[in-house]
């Protein structure tokens, strides 16, 4: 992004947008970095009104210490060496040289300790924290020649490595130094003239790159959920129908290792909970033989479903999306054929398509990185690990359910619902579900980590996370409901349930728990109609007898009249607030 475009992006903010308050803590003139940071956040969240604040010049630690303001949505810390000791920068005329080295290292260590304590003091319910470790080269202040690492330099880097680990352990997001180096080479980052004359040490390209990465930490886009891959010249090299299952390759000896790397990445993604499926124009029986090869780097059970036949790929993708029960906008389709990609993209608007670059290794490396970026997530949950098994379970559930009377079928499931009454911010899976669930979603409102961690207004907040298991296997945490009591009414502002958990009457059990736990006479739902939340709309229609619109009230009597027989065993757990 050009600087002028960043300025214009920030100027075009909606006047009535919900504010997103970002505190940028840095020890230098923040102008350029702040502008790029704000512009990238604004690009990703055009409906929000971005408000950027920063602390006093030269006082990064003090800014962080003061950043406990509950009004901040994000605290962005752009750390540089001179924040640890001004002598590690160019603007202070403090002594360099052997006599000062030990003191510089000791001062830097003390500054990092103070910064760590300041970060510990930022409550998780106040703001999400995004940090960048020092990005500028150290000045030539140590006794070694530039090619050689000085003891003091090694000590400083070790301190930073320890500090970074501490930040990660605390749940903060830390900008990848490697990615930054790809975008902004070290030698092009420092603008000595601007540093000395105006206190702005970054070149514009560096401020651009760092601002972009920091903004990604503020915005945290939801990761894609599924990847559909072609086979021939994509998952492997060669046409399996022509050369046979044993002759397709993905190894170094055959000079086709790019396909092997793709398989390794897919296997890794599958372990992380990404759904992987195959859409291939091929003979299904031959494909099954090839997929059974023991040297395949992704296990057959990690791939589901496999659509291998001669029909159009858009139809295959359609069936896969239905099996996964997710939208095209959550899915990436990889194929070596531009025509196939176009056919699928035309039939499934929103799907992300990637052409497999068969012989272009540079493009291949970029593709692997892009796929990683699209599916990257800060942490892997238990639900991620069981996702594919859970989808197979859901298919078995549906098959058996079709063959039995509903109540007899449900009664025989041996289902257990675990309802966990939690504190805001306790469980990152709750926010993940809220932000990626479309169909059974009360209003489609997405939340940042910080505004979700903030308790809803009201004296008696409620946050319920439901997990489910039955004879077909566990589905993990599948529903989240949030609200607060106002007198004899419980007002629900967020309610989602995974589509994998439909048709089990879990939603009724959740509502029954709400009525009972808070002893209320009625529940008000802050309902908003979205393009996709038909299942939630249908439930409210069933409960009230009319089409929902805006706030919907369901009384205890209405619920009792509409609630079908429930056969679950219900377990309840309750977490205690951090302050006791």
């Amino acid at each position, binding site marked *: 992004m050009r600087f*002028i475009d960043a*300025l214009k992006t920030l100027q075009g903010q909606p006047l009535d947008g919900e504010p997103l308050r970002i505190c940028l803590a840095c020890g230098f003139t923040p102008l*350029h970095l702040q502008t790029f940071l704000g512009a990238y956040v604004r690009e990703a969240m055009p409906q929000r009104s971005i408000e950027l604040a920063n602390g006093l010049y030269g006082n990064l630690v003090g800014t962080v210490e003061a950043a406990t303001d509950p009004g901040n949505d994000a605290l962005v810390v752009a750390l540089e060496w001179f924040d640890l000791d001004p002598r590690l920068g160019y603007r202070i005329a403090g002594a360099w040289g052997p006599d000062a080295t030990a003191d510089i290292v000791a001062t830097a260590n003390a500054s990092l300790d103070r910064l760590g304590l300041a970060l510990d003091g930022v409550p998780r319910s106040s703001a999400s924290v995004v940090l960048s470790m020092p990005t500028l080269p150290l000045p030539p202040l140590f006794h070694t020649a530039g090619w050689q690492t000085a003891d003091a330099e090694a000590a400083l880097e070790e301190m930073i490595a320890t500090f970074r680990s501490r930040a990660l352990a605390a749940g903060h997001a830390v900008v990848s130094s490697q990615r930054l180096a790809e975008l902004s080479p070290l030698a092009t980052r420092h603008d000595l*003239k*601007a540093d000395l004359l*105006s206190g702005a040490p970054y070149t*514009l390209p560096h401020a651009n790159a760092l601002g972009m990465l920091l903004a990604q930490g503020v915005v945290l886009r939801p990761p894609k959920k599924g990847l559909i891959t072609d086979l021939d010249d994509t998952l492997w090299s060669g046409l399996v129908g022509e050369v046979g299952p044993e002759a397709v390759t993905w190894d170094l000896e055959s000079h086709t290792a790019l396909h092997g790397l793709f398989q390794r990445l897919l296997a890794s993604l599958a372990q992380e909970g990404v759904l992987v499926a195959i859409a291939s124009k091929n003979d299904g029986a031959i494909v099954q033989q090839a997929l059974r090869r023991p040297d395949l780097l992704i296990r057959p059970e990690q791939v589901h479903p496999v659509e291998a036949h001669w029909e159009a790929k858009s139809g295959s993708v359609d069936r896969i999306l239905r099996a996964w029960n997710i939208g095209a906008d959550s899915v990436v389709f990889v194929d070596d054929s531009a025509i196939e990609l176009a056919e699928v993209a035309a039939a499934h608007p929103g799907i992300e398509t990637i052409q497999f670059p068969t012989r272009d290794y540079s493009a291949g490396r970029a593709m692997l990185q892009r796929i990683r970026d699209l599916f990257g997530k800060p942490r892997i949950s238990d639900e991620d690990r069981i996702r594919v098994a859970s989808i197979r379970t859901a298919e078995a559930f549906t098959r058996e359910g079709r063959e039995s009377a509903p109540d007899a079928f449900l009664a025989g499931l041996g289902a257990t619902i675990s309802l966990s009454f939690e504190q805001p911010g306790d469980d990152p899976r709750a926010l993940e579900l809220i932000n990626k669930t479309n169909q059974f979603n009360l209003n489609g409102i997405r939340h940042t980590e910080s505004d979700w961690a903030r308790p809803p207004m009201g004296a008696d907040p409620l946050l319920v996370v439901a997990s489910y298991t039955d004879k077909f296997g566990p589905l993990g945490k599948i529903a989240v409901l949030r609200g607060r009591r106002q007198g004899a009414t419980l007002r629900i502002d967020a309610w989602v349930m995974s589509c994998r958990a439909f048709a089990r009457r879990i939603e009724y059990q959740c509502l029954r728990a709400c009525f009972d736990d808070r002893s209320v006479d009625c529940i008000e739902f802050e309902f908003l109609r979205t393009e996709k939340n038909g299942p939630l709309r249908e439930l409210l229609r069933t409960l009230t007898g009319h089409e929902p619109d805006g706030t919907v009230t369901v009384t205890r009597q209405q619920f009792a009249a509409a609630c079908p027989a429930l056969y679950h065993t219900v377990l309840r757990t309750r977490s205690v607030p951090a302050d006791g």
Partner: protein
Amino acid sequence: MDEIERRLTTCFAGVFPDVPVAELRRLSQASNASWDSITAITLVAVLEEEFGFELDFEALPELDSFERVLNYVRGQVER
């Protein structure tokens, strides 16, 4: 308005969003209170990015109006 002036006007419009485009040509530090040191740094960054030269900070105090900046930019571009 020639090409340089058009590009400079775009730069000024980005740095001074509250000033109507028609008035940018008459803009000066004396007539606009928002033209402070921070704005000057912003303007320098925008000009260097747009025209690809490195602005001499010694000249900055003299560049206190659209007209003077225009003359400076012309001089740099013609070098």
